[in-house]
């Protein structure tokens, strides 16, 4: 098996290539077969790998060396350590389920083969991202998943909003990746290699070293970590680069479930977890991670409270939950972060797929205000949704409770009380907004147009099976993996990875007050659900009254803190105005000097130099003669 690691990503890649090449002409509506089988087999292989890692520890495989020149080598190496093993199983498993789900969801779409090819390609890229054993490969596939995400968001490229959303995701991610790229370069100049093992084992040597930039001496490791974190912020849609994720919901729902909830957006969390040995040596960077995570948790949840688009609520929920993971990483609850990543992948995929099922049932309707009373019409979906919602809200014994509670506990124990308060408040809001969603969608009366009501139908089994599997996982995964708290399966399994990190300050091993905290968070969650019930079932007029009483707050939240507008005013418009100002206000020479100086200089030189080429044959001969004269002359002078 050790030598067969490459098969895991290779199968989806192969399926993708064959599907895109032959899809349009020959495979057509059977396009799902190859990707499903490919990803399915990779999932089985991932499971085998997982157990191997469990038994024998980290696996390595050098596929081939891409470039080798003297000491410098770029090897294509795959590596599976416990962290990767968890990721690989989650990615291939969720991906497999979503492939199956898509058979039903995308049925009849004109880009059927394209969709399956790209989603399979995405699976390949994501698997390579987590399997890679060095930063170069990580970076390459970091970009590759971004590209796949872009392609899939724009699946319905003829819809302007979809095309725009794809573009927005691409550009916002570019900002983060810029930092990430710089970080990787900094790593290379510091360590002379990009190999994980070498870097992590040697990172201790660089504690306290500084790096001069703009005349300021930055702490080397802190700077590196922050640059890497910039990439993570972009990919995991954390504040302030979160703006692309809600728009990304323009893509097909399976894409939202797979890429924008379960896998790709967690790549940032994976990155920070992977570089934990570095972060551990840079406490300032960790603090900033915790801060950004904690703020995002709260802030995204508040926006989620008032959104009306079913998928947008889930999108903000995703941002918020990812914030939990970063917060956990920042406060040192490493395992809790990965644990939450796993459980979140299950229940958030479940929620998205279930919402997809709802949308499917309503023929594309996404606005919750036009839903309601669907409980009896699509009971399967309802139950799946309910399980997902309970898991997200943090009701024991479902998955979300265990992981989220561990994060909050870790935060509390690490002494970040403010973050703990934010986190707990968010737990309340989470429960509120997700049950608001449930109540608005499944309870009460149907508020949509009558024409829509008629064809409401339960989704086909091919869509419900994945839901069932994910629902079961959402119920059981939490306590199977994470019970008892801090000593569960996942903790022992991930311990080797954590042990590799140097100077890890283990969390205080006290469960003192643990029960109290646990009880408190259950209470908070229950309170959230109750409030939602009050607002949307018992007295449905309350939200309206609430919005009327506090119009500015409501507006503020509804418009997502005006973030898009703020960015427009802060960055987009000033850039335009500044450009205008430069164009009109400044002398040409200033622009030339500052912005285009070098390029213009080369242009001028180019225009001058080309005049040497006079077109006269005999002058060409003369230039050869002059060349010989000069070389000989130098010779005479020197030798």
């Amino acid at each position, binding site marked *: 098996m050790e030598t067969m690691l490459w098969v895991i990503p290779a199968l989806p890649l192969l399926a993708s290539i064959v599907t895109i090449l032959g899809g349009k002409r020959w495979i057509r509506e059977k396009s799902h077969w190859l990707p499903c089988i490919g990803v399915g087999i990779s999932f089985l292989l991932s499971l085998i790998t997982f157990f191997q890692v469990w038994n024998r520890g980290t696996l390595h495989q050098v596929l081939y060396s891409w470039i080798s020149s003297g000491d410098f080598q770029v090897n294509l190496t795959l590596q599976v350590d416990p962290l990767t093993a968890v990721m690989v199983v989650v990615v291939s498993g969720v991906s497999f389920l979503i492939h199956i789900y898509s058979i039903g969801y995308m049925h009849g779409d004109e880009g059927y083969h394209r969709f399956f090819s790209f989603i399979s390609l995405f699976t390949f890229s994501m698997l390579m991202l987590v399997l890679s054993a060095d930063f170069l490969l990580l970076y390459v596939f970091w970009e590759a998943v971004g590209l796949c995400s872009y392609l899939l968001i724009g699946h319905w490229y003829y819809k302007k909003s979809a095309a725009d959303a794809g573009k927005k995701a691409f550009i916002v991610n570019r900002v983060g990746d810029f930092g990430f790229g710089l970080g990787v370069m900094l790593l290379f100049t510091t360590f002379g290699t990009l190999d994980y093992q070498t870097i992590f084992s040697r990172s201790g040597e660089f504690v306290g070293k500084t790096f001069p930039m703009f005349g300021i001496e930055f702490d080397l490791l802190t700077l590196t970590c922050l640059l890497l974190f910039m990439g993570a912020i972009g990919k995991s849609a954390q504040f302030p680069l979160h703006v692309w994720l809600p728009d990304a919901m323009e893509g097909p729902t399976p894409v939202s479930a797979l890429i924008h909830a379960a896998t790709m957006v967690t790549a940032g969390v994976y990155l920070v977890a992977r570089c934990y040995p570095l972060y551990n040596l840079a406490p300032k960077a960790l603090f900033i991670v915790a801060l950004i995570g904690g703020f995002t948790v709260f802030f995204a949840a508040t926006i989620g409270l008032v959104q009306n688009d079913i998928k947008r609520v889930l999108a903000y929920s995703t941002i918020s939950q990812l914030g939990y993971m970063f917060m956990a990483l920042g406060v040192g609850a490493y395992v809790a972060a990965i644990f939450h990543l796993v459980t979140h992948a299950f229940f958030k995929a479940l929620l998205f797929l279930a919402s997809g099922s709802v949308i499917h049932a309503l023929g594309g309707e996404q606005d919750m205000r036009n839903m309601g009373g669907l409980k009896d019409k699509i009971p399967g979906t309802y139950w799946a949704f309910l399980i997902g919602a309970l898991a997200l809200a943090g009701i024991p014994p479902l998955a979300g409770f265990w992981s989220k509670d561990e994060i909050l506990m870790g935060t509390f124990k690490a002494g970040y009380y403010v973050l703990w308060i934010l986190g707990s408040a968010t737990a309340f809001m989470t429960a509120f907004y997700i049950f608001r969603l449930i109540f608005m969608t499944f309870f009460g009366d149907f508020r949509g147009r009558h024409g829509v009501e008629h064809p409401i139908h339960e989704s086909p089994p091919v869509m419900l099976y994945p839901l069932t599997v994910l629902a079961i996982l959402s119920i059981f995964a939490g306590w199977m993996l994470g019970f008892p708290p801090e000593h569960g399966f996942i903790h022992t399994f991930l311990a080797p990875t954590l042990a590799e990190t140097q100077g890890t300050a283990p969390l205080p091993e006290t469960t003192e007050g643990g029960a109290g905290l646990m009880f408190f968070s259950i209470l908070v969650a229950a309170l959230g659900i109750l409030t939602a019930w009050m607002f949307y079932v018992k007295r449905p007029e309350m939200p309206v009254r609430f919005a009327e009483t506090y119009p500015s707050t409501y507006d503020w939240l509804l418009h997502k803190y005006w973030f898009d507008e703020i960015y427009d005013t802060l960055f987009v418009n000033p850039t335009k105005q500044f450009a205008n100002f430069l164009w009109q206000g400044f002398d040409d020479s200033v622009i030339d000097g500052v912005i285009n100086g070098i390029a213009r200089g080369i242009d001028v030189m180019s225009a001058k130099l080309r005049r040497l080429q006079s077109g*006269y044959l005999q002058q060409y001969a*003369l230039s050869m*003669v002059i060349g010989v004269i000069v070389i000989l002359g130098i010779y005479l002078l020197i030798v």
Partner: protein
Amino acid sequence: MPYILCFTVNRFMSPIPLSYYLVVSTLIFFIGMLGVLTRRNVLIILMSIELMLNAANINFIVFSYYLNSLRGQIFVFFVMTVAAAEAAVGLAVIVYLFRNKNTVNDDEFSLMRW
């Protein structure tokens, strides 16, 4: 046995120093080069190139003589073949240039520049 180039040859061996020949070949080479550089008529430029080739040929023969090796003479034989081939193609080019443009002056062919 190493062959070494000599300048001050024993007068009993040959009355003409090697360097005399080298000067002659160099002068012819330069006259040929001057022709290429200064003349406008492509025909004369071709002839000048032939002159340059001949200068190199003189070198070969001289060295062959002083080195006691036939190799230089063989080389000259091949150079002549090449010169003939080049002249044939070159003259063909000139003929069809003349047909198209009615001139054989090289500075009138500067359609392509910069």
